[in-house]
């Protein structure tokens, strides 16, 4: 071969090598970009109208998504394929987020003021509970088009009540409570354009939140205006709503309540339910076979969230202002407080990873989220998040009521 041929040969080889290595690297990157969403989640940044996309395998923040409106109170449900999150914002905005592309996939202004929402059993419908106008609106989960509007009309003068405690239950139904009216409604959305509604009246004064047991059978609403809780057995609605714990706290003076406790499905551990007492420094223990009080645990302050570790062995409790710098961990067998943590000012929410080895806690006034080992209680990570509040993992996609 002469010199020219060798030079040509060199040039062509160089180009071929560039091309091969370029393809090799982009293929490697493409493989890295393909991921599942089972270990992902979102954190609400309540002051800046944004959410942080996170993953729990390496405990990192992936991306901040902005433009979700007023998230001063917000909650999230996930699509059945764990790809999309539906964020219910305080100002009535409903935002659909694509976790894989990490961007907003749809957004509507559906009311003036909203507190939360749910996704139907089959994943095709999104329901939102609204304060203003009081009622429930139902949307198509794919394109967010309005499917049904259920105004919470009550009383002789046909006023609208604020709606709270909205959950999905088996049978393509939604159950929710009316704060002003003291009612519980069960809406069957089997025919989405024609909701079939069953109303239970006089269930108690000012239901402030509700939960559904993990099996989807019992709907329990906490009452702010009276002692006790309202219980509806969805397998036997003909029995109506019954009052449980009717006498707890009778005669005792309630403390001023600076923040409403929140009820979520994972207050159930084994055959006991652990719920926050209203206006008391107590966690109430309920026997879920008899619905009788099975004990009271004195705690650091007024509890906001009482959450069971996925295996049910411990429950973690956070508290209302001004005692909101503390977390207490209670053993569900002995009912004793086994650990106290001081993550910092304003611990607002906790979320356990799906199998429970770690828990994430938002510490609002420290602008951080702490991650704890749930066996050793060691803090293993801290992530910088601006005014974090709710933390929601994709595992919720497959849990009734969440």
């Amino acid at each position, binding site marked *: 071969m002469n010199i020219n041929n060798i030079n040509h*040969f060199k040039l062509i080889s160089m180009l071929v090598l560039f091309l091969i290595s370029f393809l090799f690297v*982009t293929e490697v990157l493409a493989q890295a970009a393909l991921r599942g969403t089972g270990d992902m989640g979102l954190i609400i940044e309540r002051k800046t109208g944004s959410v942080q996309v996170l993953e729990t395998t390496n405990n990192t923040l992936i991306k*901040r998504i902005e*433009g979700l409106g007023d998230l*001063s109170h917000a909650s999230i449900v996930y699509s059945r394929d764990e790809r999309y999150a539906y964020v219910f914002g305080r100002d009535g905005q409903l935002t659909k987020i694509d976790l894989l592309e990490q961007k907003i996939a749809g957004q509507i*202004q559906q009311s003036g003021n909203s507190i939360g929402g749910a996704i139907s059993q089959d994943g095709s419908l999104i329901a939102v509970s609204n304060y203003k106008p009081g009622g429930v609106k139902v949307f198509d989960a794919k394109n967010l088009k309005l499917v049904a509007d259920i105004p919470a009309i009550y009383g002789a003068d046909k006023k609208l009540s604020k709606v709270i405690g909205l959950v999905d239950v088996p049978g393509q139904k939604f159950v929710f409570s009316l704060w002003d009216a003291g009612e519980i409604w069960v809406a069957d959305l089997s025919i989405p354009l024609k909701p079939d509604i069953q109303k239970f009246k006089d269930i108690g004064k000012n239901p402030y939140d509700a939960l559904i047991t993990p099996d989807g059978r019992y709907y329990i609403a906490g009452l702010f205006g009276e002692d006790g809780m309202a219980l509806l057995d969805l397998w036997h609605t003909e029995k109506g709503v019954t009052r449980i714990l009717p006498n707890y706290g009778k005669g005792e003076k309630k403390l*001023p309540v600076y*923040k409403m406790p929140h009820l979520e499905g994972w207050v159930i551990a084994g055959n006991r339910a652990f719920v926050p007492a209203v206006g008391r420094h107590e966690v109430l223990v309920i026997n879920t076979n008899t619905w009788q009080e099975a004990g009271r645990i004195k705690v650091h302050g007024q509890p906001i969230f009482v959450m069971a570790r996925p295996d049910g062995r411990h429950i973690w409790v956070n508290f209302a202002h001004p005692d909101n710098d503390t977390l207490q961990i209670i053993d569900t067998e002995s009912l004793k407080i086994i650990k106290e943590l001081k993550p910092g000012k304003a611990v607002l929410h906790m979320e356990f990873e799906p199998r429970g080895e770690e828990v994430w806690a938002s510490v609002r006034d420290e602008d951080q989220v702490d991650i704890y080992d749930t066996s050793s209680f060691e803090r293993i990570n801290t992530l910088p998040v601006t005014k974090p509040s709710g933390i929601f993992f994709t595992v919720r996609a497959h849990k009734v009521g969440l």
Partner: protein
Amino acid sequence: MRLAQLAITFKPSFEPDPGVSSGVRLLCYSLAFSLVTAAPLLLMPPAAIAEDISPVSLDSTSKARQIELENLLEQDCGSCHGLLLNGGLGPSLLPEALKGKSAEFLKITIRDGRPNTAMPPWEPLLSEADIDWLVKKLLQKTSVPLSKEPNNKLSNEPEEK
């Protein structure tokens, strides 16, 4: 591994160059080229958030306490009244909603709460001076422009802000 193999295959055919062998040089060039083209895919620009705390010096309440009260008004009153004070479980505290209500009425409401409603008495946690400051702040506020305008689009188009 493919690159190294190629380099080894081609090596014997080249004229020997001074210094580093052609095959290794080719390997370096191609890696550098790949990194340069791949760099944009790897970079993730961090978002910057500016925190705005603007304490209002209305009276003798200390600066530190004013910052605490500002945070309380926004976050803890905001838990029920909305972070923008435009309402939630509790009514709006914006100027339009407070029209016609005296400072005295607001002070009593904050101090003693409203029995049989969700508004608690804040007297155990706030001093007279604290409550005075909060009331002045509420009455001083202008209508709050939303920092993020609600998006009125009904759409399933992907959208990024």
